[in-house]
């Protein structure tokens, strides 16, 4: 027990702490050039800490790996972060502190709230390109957020990919019916209106819309509503675990043969680990290959090797880890393209470099070449839980939205 507490303490190091600065070692040849700083407001504590510790590990390990490869065009990379507790004011303070004492071309934002709050300052500074934990649809509005991007599909695009999959599941020419279940938060509501419009466009009927409080709540009344409309599919959004388990278990107890799907943050292995056999058949949209998927590729192999090297006891790495790694990968590509074009590392030049990404091979992190559209990577795949094997398995091809 004591050892376990120590281990957890070590992994959660930084919780409630002041600042943490991590400088990954770089080969001697890269030391004489000015370091490139990856900044980050990271939620190591607070409500998003379950993902924050893994995002942080992904960013840390990528930094270590890229330095072992000689840095970016010979520049070593330095990762500078602070714990924010997932609070917007602390994230803003961390941003100001880190950018005040470093030249920071790229920065990790921990929430949609922070990224929206900091947008006007980011726009007026013109020095930093930002991405982060958010897949919010609003952030892909290039007019308002020209220097922010999404490291995957935004939530509306995730719904689009899910609906594309559902449309292929109709029988005898009938389109399946769907219900949307989402939390009463900005995060939960994000894709709902666009999702309904997309469903209508595709001829999929949305037979029910359920809003719940986030977190620990009883949802038996909401489940009774779903029993009356008997949807073929329920799509969850705005949750990590609960109340997805209750919907699945109770609806199955009622004898319904509804299938259940979710978006990025509700499609990690946590669902399998906590729900066990009850998770069987649950499907999620995921833009990246899972850490334990059968897929491979040079970058995915490098990620696995680096993860193993940095913490051999950690085992499976959650999707947050891969998300952190992929963010840093995109930053590297953008910085490299900007430098190769002989341009300064300004937000505008880097945003142009980002927009120039077409058919980019991510080395197996994403299974097909990807292109940036409206500051996002609108690609994903539907994966289904095989509870017996305790893993997600792909049930669709990669879907790249136009």
């Amino acid at each position: 027990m004591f050892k376990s507490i120590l281990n957890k303490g070590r992994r959660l190091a930084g919780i409630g702490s002041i600042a943490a600065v991590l400088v990954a070692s770089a080969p001697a040849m890269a030391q004489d050039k000015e370091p490139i700083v990856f900044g980050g407001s990271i939620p190591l504590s607070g409500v998003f800490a379950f993902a924050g510790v893994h995002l942080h590990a992904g960013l840390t390990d990528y930094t270590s790996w890229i330095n072992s490869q000689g840095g970016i065009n010979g520049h070593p990379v330095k990762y500078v972060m602070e714990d924010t507790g997932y609070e917007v004011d602390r994230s803003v303070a961390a941003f100001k502190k880190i950018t005040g004492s470093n030249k920071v071309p790229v920065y990790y934002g921990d929430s949609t709230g922070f990224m929206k709050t900091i947008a006007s300052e980011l726009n007026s500074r013109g020095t930093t390109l930002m991405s982060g934990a958010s897949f919010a649809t609003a952030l892909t509005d290039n007019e308002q957020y020209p220097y922010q991007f999404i490291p995957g599909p935004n939530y509306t695009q995730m719904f689009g990919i899910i609906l594309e999959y559902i449309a292929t599941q109709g029988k005898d020419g009938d389109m399946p019916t769907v219900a949307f279940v989402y939390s009463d938060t900005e995060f939960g509501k994000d894709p709902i209106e666009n999702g309904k419009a997309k469903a209508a466009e595709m001829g999929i009927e949305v037979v029910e819309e359920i809003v719940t409080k986030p977190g620990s709540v009883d949802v038996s009344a909401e489940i009774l509503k779903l029993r009356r409309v008997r949807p073929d599919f329920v799509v969850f959004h705005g949750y990590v675990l609960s109340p997805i388990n209750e919907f699945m278990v109770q609806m199955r107890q009622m004898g319904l043969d509804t299938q259940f799907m979710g978006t990025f943050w509700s499609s990690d292995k946590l669902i399998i680990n906590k729900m066990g056999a009850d998770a069987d058949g649950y499907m999620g949209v995921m833009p990246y290959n899972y850490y334990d998927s059968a897929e491979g590729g040079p970058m995915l192999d490098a990620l696995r090797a680096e993860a193993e090297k940095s913490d051999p006891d950690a085992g499976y790495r959650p999707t947050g880890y891969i998300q952190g790694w992929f963010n840093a990968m995109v930053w590297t590509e953008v910085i490299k393209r900007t430098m190769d074009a002989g341009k300064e590392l300004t937000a505008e030049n880097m945003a142009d470099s980002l927009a120039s990404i077409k058919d980019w091979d991510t080395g197996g992190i994403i299974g097909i070449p990807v292109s940036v559209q409206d500051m996002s990577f609108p690609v994903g795949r539907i994966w289904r839980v095989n509870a017996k094997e305790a893993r997600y398995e792909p049930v669709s091809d990669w879907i790249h939205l136009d």
Partner: protein
Amino acid sequence: MDWLFFGEISLAGLAMGGLYALIGLGFVIIYKATRVINFAIGEIMMFAAYLFLTFAGGMEMSPWIALPLAVLGGSILGGVIEKTMIRPMLGESSISVVMVTIGIASILVGLVELLWGADPQLLPGFLPRKPVFIGEMYLAPKIAYGFLIGAALLIVYLLYFRFSRGGVALRATASDQAAAYSMGINVRRVFNLSWVFGSLAASLAGVLVAATGGLSPQFGAIGLSVLVVVIVGGLDSIVGALVAGIFIGWLETVAGAYLGGEYRMPATFAVLAVILIFRPYGLFGTHEIERV
């Protein structure tokens, strides 16, 4: 109108309200005896639920052994908090004591993150999974059995406060501390017992609510939402906590079902606002009670 649906929704709401009543009881017992509004009650619930997770999950004990152990652990925690952190505050302003309970809540959240990590958790299943039907009306089994367990404790409490020496001492202290002291009642012990009993009720509710809705270090927030229950019922009224708990649980569920989930909280807060205007001391509270 679909009366079957209304009946099912109402049943679910009443059952959930029973758990709210149990948490409300935890608030009221402590307030009634000590005049302390315990803002850490949600975190005590959370702590007991994590203990259950450790006993039934990590240590693979039978859930029926793990449950009383976890509840006992939560109640001991309440007693220790009273003795080490609340008692030294005797005589200080009530706002200072409230701030201490808020500080305790933060400490418990940090402790839970350190001991169990930040990942959301599900408790090992221990309640029957077979659907419950009352006539034609369906009731989710976790809610139904959770309500029965909670109701059993409520009955034990009511009998204890009515007939036992400890219960009489607690009621006497609540109505007049000086008189109770002069009659030889150990008031300090009563204070401690009230924290133990209040935390015990909250701990049982914590395990039952977590069994339904999952567990995370943010679980304690539910304690604050139940504050509405005790303000509506009256901060010092056990009957008030029971009636208001059941009513608020029913109202929240019916509002959620007919108006949408986003109207659950506005519906309960609308009731709270009306009560505060017309009966600022709550439906069953005594007139001296101040607004929170």
